[in-house]
């Protein structure tokens, strides 16, 4: 199927087995991708955790860094996003979607690469997210490996658990790291050396370039708009193929620091910390895999009770389906060009209305 790598990995954690299921064109035509496709897979495999990529994830469409994790929490279907380079890496590993069903008897990590999904038992339980990522990159032999990893927050099934991508917190607003913890999954490691086909490359390029030109004309800033942050910023970073480098890197020690996610930093400042202290505390939050929304003491956040589900807001469902970062919405993405990119890329006849209908089911 164009714009996707071919497989869904259905991982049976009880049995320790992986079934590889082909992605059918019909599935994409009905669900497009990302959050909508994850929903469909969750109906098929209830009580699973689904990792999914959007239809544009990992392409030349600007901001196409997003992947989505979906699971039920207290009976409600919840979505959280991950970006940086993990969305594209997941897709290019050969698995555009992953279903994690059942529960492993002992802690495991999943290693996705070259259309192979390995379930590996591990003694990483109890290690923080930084130690886990460093270990996996060393063990699996590649610095470009992306990890989705849980820390103490996820292991203890805290309501404030936060899924971490490599070393940095994701927008896991629903604490789905705790659901991975319940399944005894410490990490998912991904390496994407595959490729996705494009139905009509010229048309896709033209739509993507149009969107990029539009965004570039409106993006006049770098970094998160937080008072005092720029003064302590070492450098600005962007996620995969994103024209807005909203991620400030703040040094916290010799040869290390933290990549800021704006909302998390603002949460800590709202709890009374100054910007520098907030950045340092955020690093500890990411190491422990906890969300500072619920407090400023990272250790206390590892054992919090259940928190209410955070539904997708405004146009987020649309972005979560396409696999494009919703933070770019402030600059106005040309939606007509996005639909053109989807049709040119997939070769499917998908109109803006059809897309809206599908997204409205979320």
């Amino acid at each position, binding site marked *: 199927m164009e714009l996707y790598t071919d497989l869904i990995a259905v991982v049976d954690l009880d049995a320790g087995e992986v079934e590889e299921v082909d992605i059918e064109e019909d599935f994409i035509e009905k669900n497009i991708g990302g959050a909508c496709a994850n929903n469909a897979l969750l109906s098929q495999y209830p009580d699973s955790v689904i990792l999914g990529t959007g239809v544009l994830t*990992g*392409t*030349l469409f*600007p901001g196409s860094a997003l992947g989505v994790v979906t699971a039920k929490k207290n009976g409600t279907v919840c979505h959280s996003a991950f970006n940086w*380079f993990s969305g594209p890496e997941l897709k*290019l590993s050969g698995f555009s979607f992953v279903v994690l069903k059942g529960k492993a008897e002992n802690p495991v990590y999943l290693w996705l690469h070259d259309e192979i999904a390995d379930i590996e038992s591990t003694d990483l339980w109890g290690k923080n997210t*930084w130690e886990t990522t*460093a270990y996996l990159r060393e063990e699996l032999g*590649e*610095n*470009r490996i992306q990890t989705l990893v849980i820390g103490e927050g996820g292991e203890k099934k805290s309501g404030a658990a936060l899924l971490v991508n*490599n*070393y940095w917190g994701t927008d896991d607003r629903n604490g789905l790291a705790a659901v991975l913890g319940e399944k005894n999954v410490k990490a998912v490691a991904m*390496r*994407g*050396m*595959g*490729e*996705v*086909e*494009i139905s009509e*490359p010229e048309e896709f*390029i033209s739509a*993507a*370039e149009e969107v*990029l030109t539009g*965004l*570039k004309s409106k993006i006049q800033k*770098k970094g998160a708009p937080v008072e005092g942050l720029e003064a302590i910023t*070492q*450098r*600005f*970073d*962007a*996620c*995969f*193929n*994103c*024209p807005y*480098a909203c991620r400030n*890197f703040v040094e916290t020690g010799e*040869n*290390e*620091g933290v*990549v800021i996610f704006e909302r998390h930093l603002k949460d800590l400042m709202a709890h009374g910390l100054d910007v520098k202290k907030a950045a340092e505390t955020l690093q500890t939050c990411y190491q422990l895999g906890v969300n500072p929304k619920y407090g400023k003491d990272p250790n206390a956040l590892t054992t919090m009770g259940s928190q209410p589900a955070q539904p997708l807001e405004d146009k987020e469902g649309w972005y979560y389906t396409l696999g494009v970062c919703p933070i770019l919405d402030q600059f106005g993405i040309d939606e007509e060009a996005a639909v053109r990119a989807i049709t040119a890329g997939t070769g499917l006849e998908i109109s803006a209305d059809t897309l809206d209908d599908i997204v409205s089911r979320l």
Partner: protein
Amino acid sequence: MVDSRSFLTLSAITTYPKEDGKPLYYVIGLSCQVITMIEIDPQICTACGACEVACSLYREEEVFTTMRSSIILHREERKNYYGVMLKREGEVLLGRPEGVEVMKEGESSDTGGGGKPILLREPCDNCTDAMCVRFCPTGCLKEV
């Protein structure tokens, strides 16, 4: 930082007129050929990796991948040290925070690119209207 190159090319030697097989005088044809090259300003790079996908698409035309590009993103993530490497014929251009440096093949132990190191990549074709430049969102890559 500028890395454009002009080449003076000897295009022809013609002899006029000929008497008894010997030339009376020589006309030497010279032409100036400007080769477009890619310039990197690493200070404004944001490590987005768009150039890898764009160049790979230029090479393979119908797929998105990062594996076929002549340009590679290199990142040491925990200290946020990053830059790009461009493979050229016989050399690698390193665009790092310290500046731009040209290394002869084999001079650098830093091979980047994970599963497919820079030295195994195709050298840059010095494209005009280059895909890497068109999709670099920061203007960090330029044709010169």
